[in-house]
């Protein structure tokens, strides 16, 4: 029943924003609401680990451990974004850069966007899954084009067109899956549980063709290279908290869709096909993002390319297919959501203060905004994969499982790319954080809610960086529960 709280609350918040969104205190109420959802999401995940799945309700809402995990991750990132929005939007309206009406529109869109993202893992019908993913695109396009500048409208147009075409291919793949299902004697129900059970009887060739379309289609949305071209534009132009959500969890909802179809493909056509494709696209993503991160000048685009890198690591993790690498990829989904949100919040603060995306013009962040500067410094090491933080653990586990599996080429390539990206990230951020502050720019303290958002995410990063050292077995157990290995 928790799921109805999670799906219903954003509608209520959106309605609340419609009536009270102009109010200065709406942001605080909104974040309090999303704190409740975060608790509900955690409970749902906890509950799903011990049960065999809840539902179906109304025939298309079904929660098993995998979907509960994604809902939990989304609720975490959304809570942080709501908390950050509170201070960020108030700052913008306070400085007269955003009218109160715009702020109201922002909160309505924010809540609808969250609703659409919660829907993706909650539905068990693959057609409805498609509809939910397309809804996330349509709503977030407004958040990308929110500032109505030439750049942001261009980014929104590219985003909506490229993702719509991608998603059309995903629909083609979905139809082919249902074709394979009906050939094997099933009805045309598109129900995931039924299809996963019948997968063994399906035509292997059709499954393989269909999965290509799914991977290209949802892969476009997930930001896998070479279908990633919308991603840096959209992420760099969106409102700062929306950038964090796009990068932190929107991409993951598309990964979720790929996984659902992946399970059917693995059951029907064997693991090798799925695994090779995932590893291939993952490595291409790593290579592409590595090059662009090195030469990047724009702060938010840098972070966007880093998202492509991490999606690549996640794809490699799933593609390797051992229980350990699956656990690592799942962990990485959560870790990346937390870390990348933190980085986008920091970037949002810097862009707001310096009024530019150009990294050459941003200097001395630690002097101008001490708290943000400090958090960004910790965050960039967390993002690049330094030991006490969580991304280190999950990247290490992916590498370790590739090593244990004997996929030395994968280890070699991935290690190379990750090392270069580490150096590039630390170099770029080092130049922004340190150095003398620009003349005439007073030091400034951030609002409480922004600080809280940073601390909330930072605690997640630290806990998950240390805890897996003591509970490796539990992690693998959770991964096994997720995929019923």
């Amino acid at each position: 029943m928790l799921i109805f709280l999670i799906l219903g609350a954003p509608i209520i918040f959106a309605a609340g924003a419609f009536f009270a969104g102009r109010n200065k205190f709406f942001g605080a109420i909104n974040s309090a609401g999303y704190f409740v959802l975060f608790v509900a999401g955690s409970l749902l995940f906890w509950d799903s680990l011990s049960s065999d799945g809840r539902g179906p309700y109304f025939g298309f809402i079904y929660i098993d451990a995998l979907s509960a995990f994604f809902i939990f991750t989304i609720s975490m990132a959304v809570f942080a974004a709501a908390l950050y929005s509170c201070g960020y939007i108030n700052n913008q309206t306070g400085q007269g850069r955003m009218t109160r009406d715009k702020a109201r529109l922002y909160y309505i869109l924010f809540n609808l966007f969250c609703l659409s993202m919660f829907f993706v893992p909650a539905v068990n019908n693959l057609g409805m899954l498609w509809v939910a993913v397309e809804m996330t695109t349509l709503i977030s396009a407004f958040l990308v084009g929110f500032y109505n500048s030439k750049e942001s409208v261009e980014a929104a147009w590219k985003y909506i067109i490229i993702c719509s075409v991608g998603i059309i291919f995903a629909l083609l793949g979905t139809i082919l899956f249902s074709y394979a299902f009906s050939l094997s004697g099933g009805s045309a129900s598109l129900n995931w549980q039924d299809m996963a059970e019948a997968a063994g009887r399906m035509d292997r060739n059709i499954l393989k063709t269909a999965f290509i379309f799914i991977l290209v289609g949802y892969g476009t949305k997930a930001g896998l290279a070479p279908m990633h071209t919308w991603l840096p534009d959209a992420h760099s132009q969106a409102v700062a908290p929306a950038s964090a959500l796009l990068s932190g969890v929107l991409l993951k909802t598309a990964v979720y869709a790929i996984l659902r179809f992946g399970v059917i493909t693995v059951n029907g056509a064997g693991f090798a096909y799925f695994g090779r494709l995932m590893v291939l696209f993952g490595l291409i993503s790593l290579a592409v993002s590595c090059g662009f991160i090195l030469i990047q000048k724009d702060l938010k685009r840098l972070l966007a390319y880093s998202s492509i890198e991490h999606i690549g690591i996640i794809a490699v993790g799933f593609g390797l297919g051992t229980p350990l690498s699956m656990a690592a990829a799942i962990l990485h989904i959560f870790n990346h959501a937390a870390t990348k949100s933190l980085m986008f919040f920091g970037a949002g603060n810097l862009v707001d203060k310096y009024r530019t995306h150009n990294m050459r013009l941003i200097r001395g962040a630690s002097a101008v905004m001490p708290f943000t500067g400090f958090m960004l410094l910790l965050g960039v090491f967390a993002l690049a994969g330094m030991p006490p933080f969580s991304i280190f653990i999950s990247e290490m586990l992916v590498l370790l499982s590739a090593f244990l599996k004997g996929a030395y080429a994968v280890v070699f390539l991935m290690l190379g790319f990750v090392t270069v990206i580490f150096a590039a990230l630390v170099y770029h951020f080092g130049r922004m954080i340190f150095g003398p502050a620009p003349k005439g720019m007073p030091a400034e303290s951030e609002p409480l809610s922004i600080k809280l958002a940073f601390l909330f995410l930072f605690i997640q990063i630290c806990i998950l960086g240390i805890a897996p050292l003591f509970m490796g077995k539990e992690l693998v157990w959770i991964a096994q529960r997720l995929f019923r290995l």
Partner: protein
Amino acid sequence: MHGIILAAVLISTYLMAIAKRMPALIRSFRYQSFCLFLSTFIIALAERRPGLYIIAALIFALKVCLIPYLLYRIIGRIKVKQDIGLFINPQMSLFCALVFTYLSWLVAGYLSAPEGYPKTEMLTAAFFMVSQGMFLMIFRKTALAQIIGLLTMENGLFLLASAVSGGMPFFVEIAVFFDVFMSVLIMGFFVYRINNLFTHIDVHKLSRLKR
């Protein structure tokens, strides 16, 4: 009967390939959607499924009437010249369309079941519409032509779904319709904005964001 409709679908799609101006493109999209409506309606008559009647009615209402009307309205409102901006001239486009038809036929042959259902012709038409929509999106310059391309791809998928499994489940089909309609509305909204900001809707000139 069904064969004639499929031929009409193909012809309307060829008309799209040679259309040079926006109204012509929208008109051929309208013909294409009307053929889909007829095809669905005939299947509904034959199989007597109430859901199919509703879907046929929705195709007629949305794709034959409402969406073309909205697109015409957009052209009227933005007052740019109505060329759709061709990268490839109509003759060459038509030649490409013929090549796509042949390729679609090959793919359809690979996928269709030995018993002869789904029919290879229907699969061919479906794949051809998807590839032609993709072609329009890539080789036409204006934002509106891209919307039509997307809608053509979606029409193709509709035909594919009805060819392979007698259509998607009813409420999924309804949700997909709603979704397509929403996306046309939202894209139209962004076309307005692009036109306001850039005073043109040539998407290949949108190049402020690089790398």
